[in-house]
């Protein structure tokens, strides 16, 4: 495996990301006490999405990877978004 340049992230950055993640977890739990009805799911998904983004970017080093790799990973999310959207062509009109 040839061209693997390794990048070491500063501990300080990682620690900060960890704090943000913990805060977001706390937020996920606390928003359940407000009754947001259908928006509850949206809010939970948004928070979870942000957390996933942070983990991928910092903990999984995507920030320091090649553009190709970043495009490939984002395509995956586009694909899942499209699949969910299509499923709703059924649910929205049924």
């Amino acid at each position: 495996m040839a061209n693997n340049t390794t990048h070491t992230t500063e501990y300080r950055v990682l620690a900060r990301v960890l704090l943000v993640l913990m805060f977001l977890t706390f937020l996920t739990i606390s928003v359940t006490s407000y009754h947001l009805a259908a928006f509850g799911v949206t809010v939970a998904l948004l928070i979870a999405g942000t957390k996933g983004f942070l983990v991928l970017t910092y903990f999984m080093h995507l920030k320091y990877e090649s553009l190709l790799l970043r495009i490939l990973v984002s395509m995956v999310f586009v694909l899942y978004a499209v699949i969910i959207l299509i499923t709703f062509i059924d649910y929205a009109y049924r």
Partner: protein
Amino acid sequence: MDQTKQEPYVSYLEHKGKYTGIRSWIFTLDHKRIGLLYMYAIMVLFFVGAIMGLLMRIELLKPGETIMKPQTYNGLFTVHGIIMIFMVVIPGLSVVFGNFFLPILIGAKDVAFPKLNRFSWWVYIAGCILAILSQFLKNGPPDTGWSFYAPYSTTTGTNVIMATFAAFVLGFSSILTGLNFIVTIHQMRAPGMKFMNMPLFSWAIYATAWTQLLATPIVGITLLMLIAERLFGIGFFNPNLGGDPVLFQHLFWIYSHPAVYIMILPALGVITEIIPTFCQKKIYGYKAIAFSSLAIAGVGFLVWGHHMFTSGMSNQARWFFSLLTFLVAVPSAIKVFNWLATMYKGSIDLKPPFLYALSFIFLFTIGGTTGLLLGSVATNVQVHDTAFVVAHFHYIIFGGMGFAFFGAIHYWLPKMYGRMYNFKRATIAWAIIFVGFNLLYFPQFILGIEGVPRRYFDYLPQFQPLEVISSVGGFILITGLIMMVYNLVQGARKGEIAPANPWHGSTLEWQIPSPPSLENFDEAPVVKSNPYDYE
């Protein structure tokens, strides 16, 4: 390649590593040995599944009870389906020939993660054992069909949990293999092996690997949801608990339609290797074939609803899925036209691998066009859940993927074992298989259009003639299969020593000795051009 070496040549089969005997196989890290291990397991499972199919065909020789009770039949078609789909064809070509030949084709000495590869193989075997256990535990084999449709699968008393868990484990193996192949293709190519210089089989494996990686987690989650519903009464799917059974179908087919591309893409790739070799001609439309693999994999993700036209989906969704299903036929047809154009004015050599490739095109085309019939909503309503569907998918999976698998063995066996099989026997076996196959499945198109439902152990008396023809075809088919395997085993063990390049192929695997050495290449090959350079 290099005949002036000092030390005697040692092939991967004779290589002495840390372990000896059976342990040198179970603990091997060599992608070629792992490929063979998968092949042996798959052949055994294939015959177990085929015998179950034959038992069903015996039951259907006459109306009413012939040799088994209805519940036995339900178990048989379920287990037959689970074995054939999850253990034979989904891993199929990609784990056997992908493992063995992908690294060689791109000039690498192994896959990117050999230990992960070995682990995938162990997980695969664990999954197979679990699935086989589910047949013998006390509640009886699952009777849901291989698709595990809810809500029935949430309530039946049979061993559904064990069977779905087995499918979950098998899926894990598939994900890891896909990941391994993607990284292999990105990182391990020999100097000069640009993406556009890769043999087309590698392109097919690449597209397949992405599908494995992205689609399989969905079925994993779905099966876990089903297990959770059964164990804890969480209402995902059962309407009595507030769930939605159509949701199960969505989730299941979001995986299982791409899964048919996991099966068929490597098959298309193998055919694309065989055809230029036996026509001694440059492949026509290299780029079109490479990108059509990606297009099939991509659009294949968006058509799953064509399995659910009659399940109470919204009309808008039916319209959408029908349209996209027609679109996905385009890249498949591109490949067929490219193959035909390659053959045109080639110096065609009707050796056994090429016979399998030709019959593949024939059967795949029948399977594909009947698929369009199923993809159009109006005709689907007529033939849904009838024997027509059974005929259609056997033409695609067995006539397509199965024949490509047999073609691939006949093509690559001299490279894998360094020996050759008997051509005459191979040709006769091929002819028997081809006739038996069509006799077995073609009548089921007619039966289906006449309204005979699938997954029934019984039928009305007026359908008996066609049912009998179909069953007779089954016996002819299995005779040919036994003959083919016998011939291959004989060839691999005692056949004549094969030259390094018996078919005058142009891709990298033919430039190294047969069987290959442990590290495939003495020194990393340098590639300068497109692989299909015939004069």
